[in-house]
């Protein structure tokens, strides 16, 4: 049985009829849909166990704490992290990147350099611009090649004694490019720079193993891996995380507080002030358990098959340009394209009229749009429940738009 045939019944939202057609949801890179087990786990938590975590000395408080901390253990296993202390639960990828950038900002000096890439999502651009502005540091970017890969020959000369941070995406949210994380991290470490990887588009689609990636920080969101919104993961290598001063204060992140000073809590709670997203953590656990049951290798294979089919089908439509690396094994499960003579917003609106949900616009990657020389693109992205037939429906619809011009 194909993966989509197994998983489709698990996603209640796929029963939706949109504009008189069965929904074809091709926007999982923006936010994935949720399997029933995630929805049920969160409802069950609110109906049976909700209380605040960590200091509630009563049954519900203990249950909530255990459920919340279980999410950390599940994440640790899911990403192959060495210790649960290295797993900080955040509000999402953007929050995690801001957390790291804020903390590192306090260690930067005038003249330091932060290296990003031309294909970063704004959430891995703006926090570094802010950090640089605070410290008088500079943000520079590793260029991309014509076929949408990172230009590693240009990377090495950019990497110097002043490079303090190399922050880059694991999988581009537009081009789908899978970057050589381990190689970049090895070079960056040799130059004495800290590495921060935006894993938002990788975590939903491939097995993750922190030790083999070799980065210092890895960040992703729950809502893109079939879990709820409002929670995400920041993994940090313990010795690097230990050196960072927390930049957000509040309850739970301290051990002892006086009027004029405080002693920070241990990792990872030092970076989790205030009441955390508890129900969301329960949902995240259920999402990870779902993904593990299906198997990340199988999910990756399914994504590749759909991507290859989609690239071939769209490239065959006259007037359609497909962006990013040509070889499906070099990319994640996203395909950005444009239709000559049609603005991407119109493409998305016309496809929506046929019940097909795609993303359109600059995809929070304006520097990359400038590199591509476009105002925006349309983008389809896949999840475990998408079928080859849905790809064909998309291709037929796009061909219809193209021929109508």
């Amino acid at each position, binding site marked *: 049985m194909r993966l989509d045939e197994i998983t489709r019944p698990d996603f209640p939202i796929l029963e939706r009829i949109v504009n008189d057609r069965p929904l074809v949801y091709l926007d999982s890179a923006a936010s994935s849909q949720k399997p029933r087990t995630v929805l049920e786990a969160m409802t069950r938590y609110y109906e049976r166990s909700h209380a605040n975590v960590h200091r509630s000395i009563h049954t519900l408080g203990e249950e909530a704490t255990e459920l919340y901390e279980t999410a950390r253990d599940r994440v640790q296993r899911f990403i192959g992290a060495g210790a649960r202390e290295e797993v900080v639960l955040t509000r999402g990828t953007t929050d995690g990147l801001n957390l790291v950038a804020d903390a590192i900002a306090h260690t930067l000096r005038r003249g330091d350099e932060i290296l990003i890439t031309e294909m970063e999502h704004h959430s891995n651009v703006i926090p570094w611009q802010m950090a640089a502005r605070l410290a008088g540091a500079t943000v520079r970017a590793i260029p991309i090649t014509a076929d949408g890969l990172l230009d590693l020959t240009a990377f090495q000369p950019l990497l110097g004694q002043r490079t303090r941070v190399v922050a880059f995406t694991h999988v581009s949210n537009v081009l789908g490019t899978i970057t050589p994380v381990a190689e970049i991290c090895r070079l960056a470490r040799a130059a004495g720079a800290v590495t921060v990887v935006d894993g938002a588009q990788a975590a939903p689609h491939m097995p993750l193993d922190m030790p083999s990636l070799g980065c210092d920080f890895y960040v992703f969101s729950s809502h893109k891996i079939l879990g709820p919104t409002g929670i995400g993961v920041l993994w940090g290598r313990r010795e690097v995380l230990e050196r960072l001063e927390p930049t957000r204060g509040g309850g739970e992140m301290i051990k002892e507080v006086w009027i004029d000073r405080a002693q920070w809590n241990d990792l990872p709670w030092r970076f989790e002030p205030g009441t955390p997203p508890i129900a969301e953590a329960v949902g995240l656990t259920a999402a990870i358990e779902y993904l593990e049951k299906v198997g990340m290798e199988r999910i990756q294979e399914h994504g590749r098959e759909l991507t290859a089919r989609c690239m071939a089908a769209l490239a065959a439509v006259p007037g359609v340009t497909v962006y990013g690396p040509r070889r499906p094994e070099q990319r994640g499960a996203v395909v950005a394209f444009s239709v000559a003579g049609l*603005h991407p*917003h*119109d493409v998305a*609106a016309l496809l929506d009229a046929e019940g097909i949900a795609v993303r359109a616009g600059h995809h929070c990657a304006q520097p990359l749009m400038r590199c591509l020389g476009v*105002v925006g693109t349309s983008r389809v992205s896949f999840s475990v429940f998408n079928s080859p037939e849905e790809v064909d429906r998309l291709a037929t619809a796009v061909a219809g738009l193209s021929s109508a011009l």
Partner: protein
Amino acid sequence: MLHVGDGRITAARFLGDSCAICTASADVVAELVEGRRGAEATALGVAEVLDVLQADIRPTRMRCVTLPLTVLGAALGVKS
């Protein structure tokens, strides 16, 4: 681009790389402001443009309708 003579807009033209709604809105705005005085043109509101467009515009696309009005305002601001 606005041509102004004797305090009135004698011609309004636009160049844009935009979606169908934004292009249509810009077209309507250009048509509606011709012959108006600066203050009358500034007073042009989204309701008037929607009246002419006669289309079902969703909330997420309202910015596509209003962008030409913002550009018009900026152009008039520069001129005044």
